[in-house]
């Protein structure tokens, strides 16, 4: 199997409300930042793949407009996933492994501020048994949080720690949206949105975009002597029937851990697509990360651009490996209610 490396990643400053900036105007700066850093143009890209959600824009095929951010003449090979852009990266990686491309541009974008994210996410679920009840994303997350708390898999203290650390770590990410520190008193004084979750346990409504460029092994060495390879990647989805899942048993993630033989790897850093505070200690425990610096970027709790935050976890892991004396990094991307669909990515820097 051909090896694939990440050679560039850029993130737009995460905004509370991008206002009149449209999706194209959010994507263009990050794509061009990458092109400028690598000294290339769209002509050097063999395959382009984006991740976004038409529900956010409220129009069918809204993602097509995103292509206005890049040069599409002469015609390009292009695809889109109605998923987090982490899965656009997955598709691009397969394209390179199949020998159809040596370079790929991935971008993700999302503007959550104009709509009502809670009701929009409800619409994306099972249209027979779940959507008609209008369960919001916070309430579904809260159902899993309560299961984990009840079974003592996590503690309320760990949730508070996750919130405090996310805010503290936001200083490491110049693009973070939420940078205000919070203490335990403020956390405890906060009213629940959907018990047991309060506003600090939830990610901020965020607008933004991110882009990444990946390349085949030969191509990657044209840009760097120390490529950061996608050494292992695996994603699994669990039932859309939320009531048939054991919300305290991450069967999909456990299968990925086994497939990727993660227990044999000593990770230097991890970035998790943990949108709610309870997911941080839960996944740290599942992934055996108690001694591994996790979410040094602050993670989704300090900026959660829909359809980008998973790609951002991969991108932030890449940045950590690139700028530190690190070798192995673990990234996690997620989709669906209560961590239904999860991707694990093992990145390794060649010395």
């Amino acid at each position, binding site marked *: 199997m051909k090896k694939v490396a990440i050679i560039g990643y850029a993130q737009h400053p995460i905004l509370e409300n991008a206002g009149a900036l449209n999706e194209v105007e959010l994507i263009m700066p990050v794509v061009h930042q990458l092109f400028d850093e690598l000294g290339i143009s769209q002509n050097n890209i063999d395959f382009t793949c984006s991740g976004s959600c038409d529900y956010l824009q409220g129009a069918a095929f809204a993602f097509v407009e995103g292509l206005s951010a890049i040069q599409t003449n002469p015609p390009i090979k292009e695809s889109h996933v109605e998923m987090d852009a982490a899965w656009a990266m997955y598709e691009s990686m397969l394209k390179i492994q199949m020998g159809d491309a040596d370079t790929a541009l991935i971008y993700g974008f999302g503007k959550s501020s104009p709509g*009502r994210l*809670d*009701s929009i996410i*409800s619409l994306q679920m099972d*249209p*027979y*048994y*779940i959507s*008609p*009840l*209008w*369960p*919001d994303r*916070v*309430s*579904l*997350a*809260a*159902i*899993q*949080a*309560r*299961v984990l708390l*009840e079974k003592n898999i996590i503690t309320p203290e760990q949730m508070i720690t996750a919130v405090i650390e996310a805010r503290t770590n936001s200083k490491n990410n110049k693009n973070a949206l939420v940078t205000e520190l919070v203490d335990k008193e403020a956390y405890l004084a906060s*009213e*629940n*949105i*959907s*018990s*047991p*979750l309060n506003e600090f346990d939830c990610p901020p409504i965020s607008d933004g975009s991110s882009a990444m460029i990946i390349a085949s092994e030969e191509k990657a060495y044209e840009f760097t002597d120390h490529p950061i390879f996608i050494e292992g990647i695996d994603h699994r989805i*669990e*039932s859309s*029937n*939320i*009531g*048939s899942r054991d*919300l305290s048993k991450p069967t999909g993630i456990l299968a990925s851990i086994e497939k990727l033989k993660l227990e044999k790897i000593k990770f230097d850093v991890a970035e998790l697509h943990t949108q709610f505070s309870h997911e941080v200690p839960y996944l740290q425990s599942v992934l055996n990360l108690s001694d591994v610096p996790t979410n040094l970027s602050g993670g989704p709790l300090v900026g959660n651009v829909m359809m980008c935050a998973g790609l951002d976890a991969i991108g932030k892991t890449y940045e950590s490996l690139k700028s530190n004396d690190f070798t192995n990094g673990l990234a996690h991307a997620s989709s669906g209610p209560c961590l239904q669909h999860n991707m694990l990515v093992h990145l390794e820097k060649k010395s």
Partner: protein
Amino acid sequence: MSDQKDLLRAPFELAYNYKRSSGPLMSKFFDALAEQKILGTKSSTGKVYAPAAEFDPETHESLSDLVEVGPGGVIESFSWIEEPKHHHLIKNPFAFALIKLDGADTSMLHMVTECDEADLKIGSRVSANWSATIENRITDIKFFTLEK
């Protein structure tokens, strides 16, 4: 500019102006709601999925053996909403809950209300309340309330 009379025009209605079929299995589930019955499906391993599932996510077999479950059941987990938002169907404080109906091995997502948060626990028994009008939708079950 071309003459106004040469322009092609078409009406445009922004709506989901189509009907969705609920299929051979789930249509039976929705028809049964009209009789105030809740159906599940039984797999070859004996596991009962409720609400009725079209396939078993563990064995991947298609399911067709319908069995009646509920209308009472046990709360497996819940989230409590003290201040409902615009899109919520219940305007008073309520819970979204996973409810394992009597006779089922999996849970159904629905709502529980007419109680306080402190009244609810994992393990609390609840029972279905029915809507006055039947629409063959999951909302024909109006919500669940604590069993007296």
